[in-house]
């Protein structure tokens, strides 16, 4: 148990090191010389050397990386040239919560719609639910979220006027307003997940329902709903969590697009704006955070396995 956990921890630390090295490498690869950018158009050789030395850019790359990493860990991420805002504050305290809220809400919507659709599709094969699940799975997975967002804005925002079109209100400041503003974005992002979840639920449940332990549960006099939702679904959770974890990349992809379409000040918006403004340190902060997020979610999924499947637990 301890050995396995420490091996996992070592592996995670190694990946974190790669993430940081990749982010640092990105900064080094970025075009433009940071010193001349900071000095402006007119500067002397001595002031250039002075600043280079002050920034530690005359040291070997490995030392530069060490310094950078130390600064990063301390939350000393630098300041934006354009908004002169502290980047740690911008990225971690402002943008990250927006993206996380959006992602969580989308996932919730996708689960609430996707799981029952998948269950109905499995129980009543070739029924309308089955057709719906298949259509959602194929259509939702392929439909570009940015165009879906535009369509939803047009229909529900402009035409029907049910939801606000743009902007973000933090749900932790004004819960209902925040939820109201996030409904369309969350549906846009969630649409992609609904089909996926419905499809996995359907195929996993079909397989599980054919297992002898389901028949055994019926033979104990368990009512039909409990057989499906307790005995069956408990065994579907594992593949479901796997797929949700595996598709995090797709989720983040959709989140970037959705944030831009709905003008939500999240990580995707931050990185997009920074790329357009050529603000490489902000881009780098975005890369680093998504990398860390990726690692964290993978770790979480791994931990969930043991919780979901007793056979993987070590005693």
């Amino acid at each position, binding site marked *: 148990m301890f050995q396995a956990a420490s091996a996992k921890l070592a592996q995670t630390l*190694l*990946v974190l090191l*790669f*993430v940081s*090295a*990749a982010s640092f490498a*990105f900064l080094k*690869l*970025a*075009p433009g010389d940071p010193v001349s950018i900071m000095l402006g158009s007119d500067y002397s050789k001595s002031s250039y050397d002075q600043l280079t030395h002050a920034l530690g850019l005359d040291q070997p790359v490995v030392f530069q990386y060490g310094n950078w990493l130390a600064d990063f860990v301390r939350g000393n991420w630098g300041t934006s040239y354009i908004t002169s805002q502290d980047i740690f504050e911008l990225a971690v305290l402002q943008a990250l919560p927006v993206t996380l809220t959006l992602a969580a809400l989308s996932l919730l919507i996708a689960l609430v719609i996707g799981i029952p659709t998948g269950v109905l599709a499995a129980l009543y*094969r070739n029924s309308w639910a089955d057709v719906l699940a298949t259509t959602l799975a*194929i*259509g939702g*997975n*392929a*439909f*570009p979220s*940015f*165009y879906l967002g*535009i*369509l939803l*804005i*047009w229909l529900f925002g*402009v*035409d029907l006027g049910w939801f606000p079109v743009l902007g973000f209100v933090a749900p932790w400041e004004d819960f209902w307003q925040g939820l109201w503003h996030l409904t369309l974005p969350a549906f846009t992002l969630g649409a992609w997940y609904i089909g996926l979840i419905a*499809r996995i639920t*359907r*195929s996993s449940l*079909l*397989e599980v329902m054919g297992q002898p332990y389901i028949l055994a549960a019926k033979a104990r006099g368990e009512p039909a709903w409990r057989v499906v939702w307790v005995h069956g679904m408990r065994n579907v959770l594992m593949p479901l969590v796997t797929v949700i974890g595996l598709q*995090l*990349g*797709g989720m*983040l*992809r959709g989140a*970037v*697009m959705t944030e*831009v*379409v709905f003008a939500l000040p999240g990580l995707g918006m931050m*990185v*997009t704006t*920074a*790329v*357009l403004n*050529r603000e*490489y340190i902000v*881009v780098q902060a*975005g*890369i680093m955070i*998504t*990398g860390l997020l*990726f*690692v964290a979610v993978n770790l979480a999924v791994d931990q969930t396995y043991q919780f979901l499947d007793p056979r993987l637990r070590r005693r």
Partner: protein
Amino acid sequence: MTEALNVTALTRESQWRRRLLQPMLRQRSAMVGLAIIAIYIFAAVFAPWLATHDPTAQDLMASLQGPSAAHWLGTDSYGQDLYSRLLYGAQLALIIGFASVALGLAVGVAIGLAAGLMGGRTEWVLMRIVDGLLAFPELILAMAFMAVLGLGTENVVYALALSFVGPFARMTRGDVLQVKSQPYIEAARMMGVPTAAIIWRHVLPNVVSPILVQAGMRISIAILLESGLSFLGIGVVPPTPDWGLMIAEGRGFITMAPWISGVPGVALAILLVALNLLGDGLRDAFDPTTQKDA
């Protein structure tokens, strides 16, 4: 000796045909996908003949027009003909999609083969680089590369290709390691067959079909990412006829002229659905353990 090797290569090819091609032909949805993709490829190849206008010719007098005899699918805010832009957009999307996947595949497979066959320190270093690439979502990776490389069509291809290197490299290495442990590789080695010949005759044919399946499924991601990047304004630059750019442009006119974003949006959605159908078909045909109704 050569005779014998040729025979095995032949049977492997016919096996490939039987295992992958024939089951796929039986799948109706995959065939529908293939038919739609064929239409897109036709439109892309013959765009210069099918187009009624220059895709980048602006005619401000004819801006924001709905579908008409002169402009079959209407015009955008610059008066550019949407039908012609749609055709050239298909060309661009398919070229970027295929090119980026092909490039990412070539680099990734090379890295994977090198890592899997050489082993040792080379493998460790290569796989750590791959781990670094895989630690990020594709879009973020592509955005970062775009930031470094700068905007433009070519750079989109490079950025996407780089973001695909990781998955292909990891997959190839895994397949190679698996094949390498097979007895017949050991036998060939003992008979003195040169390493290059072993790779070419025995390793590659065995890793090729899973990688092709993966490539097929990546193309739809590539096209989605490409149009996404362009939509964000960090991909292809205007006035290039690109669907992502067209959707971004039409976004501001959604109430007045919904067709501006609608034409490329629907075209993109249909192409992606078709690619996914084909990809699923390829996967099911390749992997018999995936349930048909999965």
